[in-house]
């Protein structure tokens, strides 16, 4: 069934165009939010998303944006979106491309093995507060260049 496979790819590409509402220019797919995607023979799309943290206030907006993106693909008749409770999201799900975009555009670092590097100078950062502006981000300081940095954790 090549038609269905093509449709899955087309929906995936459309969903990949959705940016995180608080991280403009970074796709939710690159952030690892998309876990499951299927399309049945009638064009009914099922999407399973994983929230970075439970209680994330952006979930309803993300749902709306993903629904609109998927519904816009030719051949799609309905879209069903669910948030999955497993697997749990972790920073390992963030793609290399998103890491690069976060670092260069937003000066946001991503933890790797419990450590983070300053996006500006590469020095290992030091945590100043585990509570950043959102639940998925902590506040660090770079001892090298002095920058105040948000780190995805």
């Amino acid at each position, binding site marked *: 069934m090549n038609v269905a496979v093509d449709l899955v790819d087309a929906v995936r590409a459309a969903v990949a165009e959705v940016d995180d*509402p608080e991280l*403009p220019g970074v796709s939710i797919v690159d952030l690892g939010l998309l876990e499951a995607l299927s399309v049945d023979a009638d064009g009914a799309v099922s999407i399973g998303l994983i929230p970075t943290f439970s209680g994330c*206030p952006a979930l309803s907006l993300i749902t709306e944006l993903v629904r609109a993106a998927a519904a816009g693909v030719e051949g799609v008749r309905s879209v069903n979106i669910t948030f999955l409770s497993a697997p749990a999201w972790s920073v390992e799900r963030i793609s290399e491309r998103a890491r690069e975009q976060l670092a260069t555009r937003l*000066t946001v670092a991503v933890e790797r093995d419990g450590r983070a590097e300053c996006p500006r100078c590469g020095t290992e950062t030091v945590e*100043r*507060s585990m*509570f950043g*502006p959102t639940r998925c981000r902590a506040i660090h300081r770079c001892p090298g260049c*002095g920058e105040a940095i948000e780190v995805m954790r």
Partner: protein
Amino acid sequence: MNRWASTEEFQAFLDDGGIVEADDDMSDEYRAEVFKFIELHANSELMGGLTERDWIPRSPGLRRKMGVLAKTQDEIGHAHLLYMVAADLGVKTRRQMLEDLFAGRSRFHNVFHYAAVTWGDQVAIAYLVDAAALISQQAVFKNCSYGPYRRILRRIIAEEGFHMRHGEEMLLTIAEGTTIQHDLFQAALDRWWLPALQLFGPDSKPDDELMRFRIKSEPNEVLRDRWVQKYAPLLTGYGFTIPDPDLRHDPDTGRWEIGPIDWSHLKATLANAGPDSARRIGNAARHWSDTEWVRDALDAVAKEAA
């Protein structure tokens, strides 16, 4: 580290679009102005976060409660980042800034000197005040000469944009609701229109230092007008009355013209003598003293580790 031989050379660097970093040899005047600006922003984020916090237990429904919780965390997180950047300028330590704020010796934005009486006020703040703050921040971000502040603003703007969508959704709910909801928001609009308008400040002076140092890139009156042109038609369109008897829509130009602004209210807030200033500062000071034991514990842990 950049050095400049004279203030003229430093000004030429700024005029050419140069970006100043924390360890650069900036002029004393520039350091003082940029510090004052960031301190005001940091204080305002903190006071704004505490205002939001008051509404966590009183939000109508779980979804709104999540929104208020997230907004509180956002504002406090922004304050945290901004205090770090402000402290790096070496004018005041973070503790000095906080102590000055809680003793009423420093400033925070006028809008946090008023009481949020009902949920309607929360909607007015989210819809009008957040939008005004975003317009100001976007104008600063566009061309700001101070690098560390500019990089934080980029992220703050992304998050404030998200708050604005929340505000729009909240307004739509209340505007499409019952007469009681409509009246609740109208009463809040009567209270908040003027403070939101005054958030932009009085008209900029031609020799405004903030413009010369490229901290701001557009005069206050231009930003204020941008906000009026957007929100006057929206609010009137939803059937609300803007509390300005002189407000009129010019059919020829398509522009909304507002009446004269009474700046005495803004002046009172700048002196920390607004309608709710004393309660808000007292409340913030109480939070600060209630959490003294946390700072003591962290200091003790740090001492032990050293």
